[in-house]
């Protein structure tokens, strides 16, 4: 088949009917534009909402949970080996919250190829003393560099600088809501009482705002050293190891194996936050469904216009066949027309979809919950553009296929005799 000739004929037919062709192409353009804009916007929002929790949540958290001992003395007693002991009023034992051998565990995790990074933390329960009022709070001892790299700690600092935790001795970053309760500004000194009764004075070097109000009311951050000092523990004292993986889907399996290998409790992100994934999935599903519906409607437009064109061009088809063009050549001509509409409409759709996304991306969007977000979020994922153009080509091809087949089956004798 002579493709150049086929394309040439298709081109001439298109030019003769360029107004209808344009309308069909605009249908596709509109569909693709909305598809791109909708998916980019939805996906941007999804990422934002997931980021609220997922970005700051470790994929795997290693810790020692407080709970009753699994092996009670009675189960070890030889005389009761084949019995079922019933113990009433079982209490949690005096398990140390410290992770044993935290240094070697961290080094081993850092060398694991599936692990993106490791951030050791300490949690300390304290009271913030504000005059006569004691406010319950938590100080998280963190490694600022690791937290920033792995969990975007920097993004949530609304005043001061995260790195000040390392440079200013006995410093603390307060949750914004907590700071408001304490009426503390950056540079002020706040006083805390630990659970053992020790009193410390810490300098406020910044505020952070996570977007979750309850979280901000109780949480605060200090460096690991400062926290160890507050708790009166050695520099080896670590209560949590927060692990970020390259592939989040590996978390449940790896959590199990880490728990077994290192003899600690391990919680994966899927177990901790399962509802977020469900929400994202449903939102994506809805946007895809709407986008694809738009494209299918555009496909019907193309189908109609090609059908009309074939009725108008019966004579042309008959004469092409009489002079030696086979049915498949005629079919190819109309498929080329359909795909040309799809390609043209699709590409302009991608461009205007990108344009619309940029516009949405510049609409101001302020919310107290999200300090770092100033405009509506957009996810410029190239995958959406790829899906958009593929789908526009597939839809137009399918929409063109039936009319093209009809054209290929036209009997030239009937047309020529019918005159």
């Amino acid at each position, binding site marked *: 088949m*002579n493709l150049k*000739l086929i394309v*040439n*004929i298709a081109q*001439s*037919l298109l*030019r*003769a009917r360029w107004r209808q062709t344009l309308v069909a192409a605009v249908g596709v353009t509109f569909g693709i534009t909305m598809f791109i804009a909708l998916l980019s916007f939805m996906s941007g929002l999804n990422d934002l909402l997931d980021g609220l929790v997922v970005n700051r949540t470790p994929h795997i958290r290693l810790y020692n949970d407080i709970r009753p001992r699994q092996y009670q003395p009675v189960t070890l007693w030889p005389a009761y080996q084949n019995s079922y002991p019933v113990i009433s009023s079982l209490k949690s034992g005096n398990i140390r919250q410290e992770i044993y051998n935290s240094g070697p565990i961290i080094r081993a995790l850092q060398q694991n190829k599936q692990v993106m990074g490791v951030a050791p933390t300490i949690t300390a329960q304290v009271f913030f003393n504000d005059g006569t009022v004691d406010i319950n709070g938590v100080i998280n001892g963190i490694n600022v560099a690791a937290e920033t790299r792995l969990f975007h700690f920097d993004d949530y600092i609304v005043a001061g600088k995260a790195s000040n935790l390392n440079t200013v001795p006995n410093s603390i970053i307060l949750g914004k809501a907590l700071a408001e309760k304490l009426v503390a500004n950056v540079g002020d000194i706040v006083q805390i009482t630990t659970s053992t009764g020790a009193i410390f004075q810490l300098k406020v070097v910044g505020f952070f705002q996570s977007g979750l109000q309850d979280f901000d009311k109780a949480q605060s951050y200090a460096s690991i050293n400062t926290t160890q000092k507050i708790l009166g523990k050695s520099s080896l004292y670590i209560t949590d190891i927060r692990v970020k993986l390259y592939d989040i889907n590996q978390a449940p399996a790896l959590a199990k194996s880490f728990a077994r290998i290192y003899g600690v409790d391990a919680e994966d992100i899927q177990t901790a936050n399962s509802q977020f994934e469900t929400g994202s999935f449903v939102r994506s599903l809805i946007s895809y469904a709407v986008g694809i519906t738009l494209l299918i409607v555009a496909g019907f437009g193309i189908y109609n216009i090609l059908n009309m064109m074939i009725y108008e061009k019966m*004579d*042309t088809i*008959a*004469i*092409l*066949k*009489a*002079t*030696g*063009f*086979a*049915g*498949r*050549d005629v079919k190819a001509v109309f498929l080329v027309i359909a795909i040309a509409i799809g390609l043209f409409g699709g590409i302009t759709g991608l461009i205007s979809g990108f344009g619309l996304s940029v516009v949405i991306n510049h609409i101001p969007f302020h919310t107290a919950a999200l300090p770092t977000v100033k405009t509506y979020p957009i996810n410029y994922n190239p995958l959406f553009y790829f899906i958009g153009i593929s789908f526009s080509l597939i839809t137009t091809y399918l929409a063109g296929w039936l009319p093209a087949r009809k054209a290929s089956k036209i*009997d*030239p*004798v009937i047309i*020529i*005799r019918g*005159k």
Partner: protein
Amino acid sequence: MENTILAAVNIVKYFYDPVKVKVLNGVNFSIHRGDFVSIVGKSGCGKSSLLYVLSTMDTDYEGDVLIDGISMQQKKEPYLAKIRNEKIGFVFQFHYLLNEFTVLKNVMLPGLKLHKYSEKEVEARAYDKLKTLGIADLALKNAARLSGGEKQRVAIARALINDPDIIMGDEPTGNLDKKNSELVFDIFKQLSHELNQTMLIVTHDPDFAAKTNRIIRMEDGKIVNEEKNLVG
């Protein structure tokens, strides 16, 4: 005149709509290279139906058509399309140019489809054919802007582009006035004389038929009479 280019072997054809009618009832004849043949007969005698069977466009018939000795019965559609492209040139009653293209492109299309020559060569050949028919100056005009006589001459040029074994015409002068009819006939005659082009023309114009070499007269789906006209 030994070389048979087209042969009809006992062709029978029915029309089914609205009732079953036998339009062709055992037609036998053959055409040699260089023949200038006309088929005449009353309206409805089946002469056009015969032409479409012979043209390979109509495949719903009994009997056989031999083009250049090859049977056309049971052949696939793409093969028949190729035969039409290569060996047959058509001239219809109503011009049937493609209005989307220029005159030149209309003439070139079957040549481009055949793909025997490069596009440049096909273009040169198309100009050549248009010149032979005295309409080279129309080459770049849009086909829709031509007069009836001009369109028919362009259609003849298109029929000639692939140097076909045979030209088939279905009332080629039926829609033209006296002057243009004569002009078109003169072209056919010129082709017959100078290029020894084989031609089969269906017509109900007795004047036209009288000037061809051989007249086949049909009635009720059958050939009733054949006369040689050596004066032609």
